[in-house]
């Protein structure tokens, strides 16, 4: 009996969804025949049969998600392929991926497939010793990395300029040592891999398909600040850290309900607008490798405190790259808190296949004119990018106005509270 387990998918992915089985119980696929298609965070891979044998049981059905290590399917066959070391459980990928050198059973373990770094053993040894990643080194000789290349790279990495530090005005600013002149610059090439690659692909798709327009607005954050101040200590008693985001999400929901076109998606093939009846809010979050959008599911059914709790978990998970596929997909509208890293406003890119994205900037005291006088008010900049095929400027303006109204009058939420 051979239990075929989902192998490590690499690139930090630890789950895959079975898109479809190409075999059923009772079939007898041959070794390496494609038996299933699985999806891992937007890439579809084909799984080859690890043995020839009769399928006795399929454990994970179409549409279900399996974790790495889960048994997917059981074959009736005895094989010592694993012991002999040649059975490679890694799924054949539609795009060549790097397979790490494993301590696995194969006596013929390879490191990367493509793109492969060409470096002689002595060069690889030096690179490891100096902590140099060969993928980042530009080969000098005929596509091959030499010992010199590695040494030069290591030296440049050491003499790289330190970032200049500026202390607050009350202390005299400290400036680090002057930048040493680096040896003549050599362009570095770094292949797009992993999350960065997926982000790039996603952004390309979004920008290519959706005609973007952005409406800018401002909201007076005074009432919001007051509300948060009042609620913070109570939240703390209930062990929840209350930031602005949970409140903003809660204020967003009624606006999405009033303007359903913003919580929709365009079926490009059938040219139909799909009005989503669920409210899954994507929250753009920074992770060490790049932008991730964890999803707060059914945000309309959650209380502010529940949203706050879930948000903490999602953001933590994004940073640690431990989120599962359902937590990273399925959003109907995305919110981007650019204020969390000091941003004002910008032109956010829509999270395809949604139709709009709202960026909220940092609350900042600004001088505005009220009743003929200049006053200082905390202003929150808003930037709403929308799919101009489905939403006109007027609609976008009204959306922003309504959202601003709720930010400025959050107590309106109580009118619809059950």
């Amino acid at each position, binding site marked *: 009996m051979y239990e075929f387990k989902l192998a490590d998918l690499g690139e930090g992915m630890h789950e895959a969804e079975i898109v479809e089985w190409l075999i059923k119980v009772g079939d007898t696929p041959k*070794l390496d025949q494609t038996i299933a298609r699985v999806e891992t965070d937007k890439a579809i891979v084909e799984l080859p049969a690890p*043995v020839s044998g009769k399928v006795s049981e399929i454990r994970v059905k179409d549409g279900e998600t399996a974790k790495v290590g889960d048994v997917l399917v059981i074959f009736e066959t005895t094989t010592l392929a694993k012991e*002999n070391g040649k059975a490679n459980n890694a799924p054949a990928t539609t795009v060549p991926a790097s397979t790490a*050198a494993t301590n696995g059973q194969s006596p*013929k373990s390879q490191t990367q*497939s493509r793109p492969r770094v*060409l470096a002689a*053993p002595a060069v690889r040894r030096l690179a490891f*010793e100096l902590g140099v990643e060969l993928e980042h080194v530009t080969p000098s000789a005929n596509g091959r990395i030499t010992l010199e290349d590695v040494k030069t790279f290591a030296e440049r990495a050491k003499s790289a300029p330190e970032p200049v530090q500026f202390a607050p005005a009350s202390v005299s600013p400290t400036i680090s040592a002057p930048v040493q002149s680096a040896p003549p610059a050599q362009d570095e090439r770094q292949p797009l891999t992993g999350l960065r690659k997926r982000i790039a692909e996603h952004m390309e798709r979004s920008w290519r398909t959706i005609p973007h327009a952005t409406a800018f607005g401002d909201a007076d954050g005074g009432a919001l600040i007051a509300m948060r101040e009042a609620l913070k200590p109570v939240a703390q008693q209930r062990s929840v850290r209350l930031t602005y985001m949970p409140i903003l999400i809660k204020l967003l929901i009624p606006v999405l309900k009033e303007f359903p076109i913003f919580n929709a998606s365009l079926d490009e093939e059938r040219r139909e607008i799909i009005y989503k009846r669920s409210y899954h809010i994507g929250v753009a979050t920074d992770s060490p490798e790049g932008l991730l959008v964890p999803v707060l599911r059914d945000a309309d059914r959650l209380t502010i405190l529940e949203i706050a709790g879930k948000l903490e978990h999602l953001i933590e998970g994004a940073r640690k790259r431990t989120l599962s596929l359902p937590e990273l997909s399925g959003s109907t509208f995305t919110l981007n808190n650019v204020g969390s890293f000091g941003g004002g406003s910008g032109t956010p890119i829509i999270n395809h296949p949604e139709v709009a994205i709202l960026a909220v900037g940092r609350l900042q005291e600004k001088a505005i004119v009220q009743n003929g006088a200049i006053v200082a008010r905390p202003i929150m900049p808003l930037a709403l990018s929308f799919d101009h095929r489905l939403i006109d400027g007027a609609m976008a303006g009204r959306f922003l106005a309504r959202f601003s109204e709720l930010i400025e009058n959050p107590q309106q939420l109580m009118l619809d509270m059950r």
Partner: protein
Amino acid sequence: MVVGDVTTAVDVLVLGAGPGGYVAAIRAAQLGRVVTIVEQGAPGGTCLNRGCIPLKALLTSSERYYQTRSSELATMGIATEAVSFDWATMQAWKQGVVDRLSEGVRRLIVGNRAEYVHGTGWFINDREVRVEGEHGSLRFKFEHCVIATGADAAPIAHLPYDGKDILTPEQALQLSELPEILSFFGNDYIALELATLFARLGVKVKLYVPGEQLLPGVEPAALRLVQAGLRKLGVQVSMKASIEQIHERPIVVSNGVVPRTAGLHLNDAGIKLSENGGIAVNSMQQSNIPHIYAVGDCTGGPAFATIAIKQGKVAAESLSGQRVQFAPLVTPYVVHTTPELATVGYTAEEATRAGYKVVSGRFPLAANGRALTLGTDAGVALVVASADDGILLGATLVGPRAGDIIGQVTLAIEMGATLTDLAEILYPHPGLSEALQESVENTLGRAIHVLAMK
């Protein structure tokens, strides 16, 4: 608690003197460490005493005997009369080879001023090991420890090894009498080599292979030649065998190995195991306890001495403060059947699955002068390369000395050599490595000694 327990402080403590352990010990000594190595048997471990070396020795002696019985010598004009062999003497010769090598290892250990302790060790905590042997009980407190305790034959459910009816490969090599009929279960190099060795000596051999293929994953064209060789020896091969359903006795089972970690009390040191049951290590051979290393079969990786040897060096260098890792691109794999088979790197199919556009070439040994002067034409050289840039990805060699020539290919792959690199250089003529060259040239569409069919 042992009365009068004295703890000896040591710098580097190595547990096991097999290829992983003794190499780690010697390398550490070369780097200036003070080393103590603990071993319950003779120096050299399983490989030297019970596995690789005895097997290869008996393969040589059985081959010599077989050659004298075959018609080959007669065709060369050599007449032989009543050639016989004495199994006991053959075993004694084998043991002589083993003893000589083992003594050599012992001398190297002593010569490197490492202390050799006879006994069995286990962890008391993550800094101390207790060792018991004929000397009594010793307690060592170590700065660094390298675990190299190897592995045991994997057990089969309901079929305990007894060395008589159901044997491990080691037990097969130690048989004091040759049986008339001997069955083998397995599909790896050990099963095939043992089947070959006994068949050559006139034993009626049956080989039961689980699954559909001898040597899973090896190029089918190469396997055909090995299978033909087994047939020529009179080995009866059955595929898709299941061990529970074979009732022939005696039967030798090569079913893989399990890491030997049970007696080490790893829990007391807090050392973690990986899913395969071996000691979990990083690429610098460190366990989850940074000053405790593990190398070779006990880590649960592929059970090959060449891996243990390199990992032993990595561990020694690592604990001496060097930043080194065990990260070979490829591992050569050799099977000493007749014809001999050796392979390294990707097969054509594996390379395609890995995403390469593949070109491949082949050259039959029948067209190689050296092979014919050696009296054989059974063999082939298969080569796999990347179509885009000609980088050599793998090769499979079948024929005499394949296991030695494969070293050239291993170097080529690790260096990132292209087909052109291999085709450019000179090869000794007449030479078996010319088959490799011509296989490369065949890939490039210009082998001289094969009529182009591409």
